[in-house]
């Protein structure tokens, strides 16, 4: 079985050297650097890992080791960007190889070629705009709670907590 990229429920947007992906189901956005983007593109369900490695080496202009490929596949799998069959990733990521990946110290120009998949959770409208954390809410003077969304307490707003002193807190 060869790794296959997930396509359903994704919006893909190419930049010059990076690829942006938005997961409509999980509301997460990803940025793949060039190495990760190339590997993801090679994951068509038909290309063996050995061939992927060869293609990648040619594209990047240097020999690429197995663990670089494995690391990318691990990151892509964790980001739910690869298809899964019956709950198991279709990519043959071996546990021992993955453990070794973590122990490598990378230096010099190779670090620029390391695959990187960066992710954020897309904010709701309330989380993106004027809002306060709970700690900031509790700093407001009693009786002057701003009724703003609490960015770290979804669905709650900074309101008087009740009682005589009217201290502010994030409430539903």
């Amino acid at each position: 079985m060869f790794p296959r990229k997930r396509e359903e429920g994704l919006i893909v947007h190419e930049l010059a050297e990076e690829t942006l992906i938005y997961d409509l189901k999980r509301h997460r956005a990803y940025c793949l650097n060039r190495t990760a983007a190339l590997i993801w593109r090679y994951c068509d369900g038909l290309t063996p890992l050995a061939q992927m490695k060869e293609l990648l080496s040619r594209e990047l202009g240097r020999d690429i080791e197995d663990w670089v490929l494995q690391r990318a596949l691990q990151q892509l799998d964790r980001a739910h960007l690869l298809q899964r069959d019956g709950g198991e990733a279709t990519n043959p990521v071996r546990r021992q190889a993955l453990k070794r990946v973590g122990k490598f110290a990378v230096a010099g120009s190779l670090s620029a070629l390391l695959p990187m998949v960066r992710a954020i959770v897309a904010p709701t409208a309330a989380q993106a705009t004027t809002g306060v954390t709970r700690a900031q809410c509790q700093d407001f003077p009693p009786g002057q709670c701003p009724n703003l969304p609490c960015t770290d307490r979804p669905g709650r707003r900074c309101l008087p907590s009740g009682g005589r002193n009217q201290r502010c807190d994030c409430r539903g």
Partner: protein
Amino acid sequence: MEKLDRLGWAAGISFRAYGVRVGIRTTTPDVLPLIYPLLPPGWKPLSRPVVDYLYSFIVGGKGPASIRHFHIVYSGAVRLARTTDLDQALRLLELDLHFYIAERARHRVFVHAGVVGWQGRAIVIPGRTWSGKTSLVRSLVAAGASYYSDEFAVFDASGRVHPYPIALGIRDEHSGLPNKRTIAELGGIVGTRPLPVGLIVFTQFHPGARWRPRQLTPGGTVLELLRHTIPARREPERVLKTLSAVASHAPALMGHRGEANDLAVGLLEWLGRLKRHSAHAKRRASSGLSVGSGCSSPLAP
């Protein structure tokens, strides 16, 4: 909503802003002059009162035997405010109204950010409340930049930013709540035309911090902008395209900062150097001379 509809509504306004039609109905026309200044920049009255969304303002005040009645504001069918303080009711109406427009605007993407203009380019400062972006905007305006907004960067599909010049919310030292001040009161000038973005600055105030930013890649810039983008979940495809257009043409810096005044002048100088560097590179390219790998850039301020 049906119960609200049955109340006696004496006055109202219907308008369009950024492609969204909104109505505000009130129980007395006396409050309308207080509502007009709260409307989004560039609003236009509708010829027919057919709207996408409706606010309802029940005006309270003193009744017989000095009984005070509450001011009550509804956003659709949801109660926003129930207060005897008219200023608070108006402020909550204003906040919700701008938020609604920002989320549903057509042909524009709203990012929570401060924006100033300098030498034909915009500096965009994304950030949530309490990040210190208003202080930085104010310092940049005091240093000569033109004011575009301290609340929203309004991007079009080509990545230009449009003015959204509502009054600055300058935080009161004692209460911590924002007081509104216009740019004219602060001695600044307001930008009027859309600008290409020259620089994006992600920063947060930390007392004593030194400005030592790192530069983001375009993809990293899009992710960081997305954190502050109002319609991110509602229209992700259009948002990604717009933010990519922004990030593809403007460098982005990220780091903690100290006092806003110390950073403001440095940012304007750096943007000026960047503009001269780009113009120089273009002239060399057109003259057939090598411009190098394209990876060099002026050092961050």
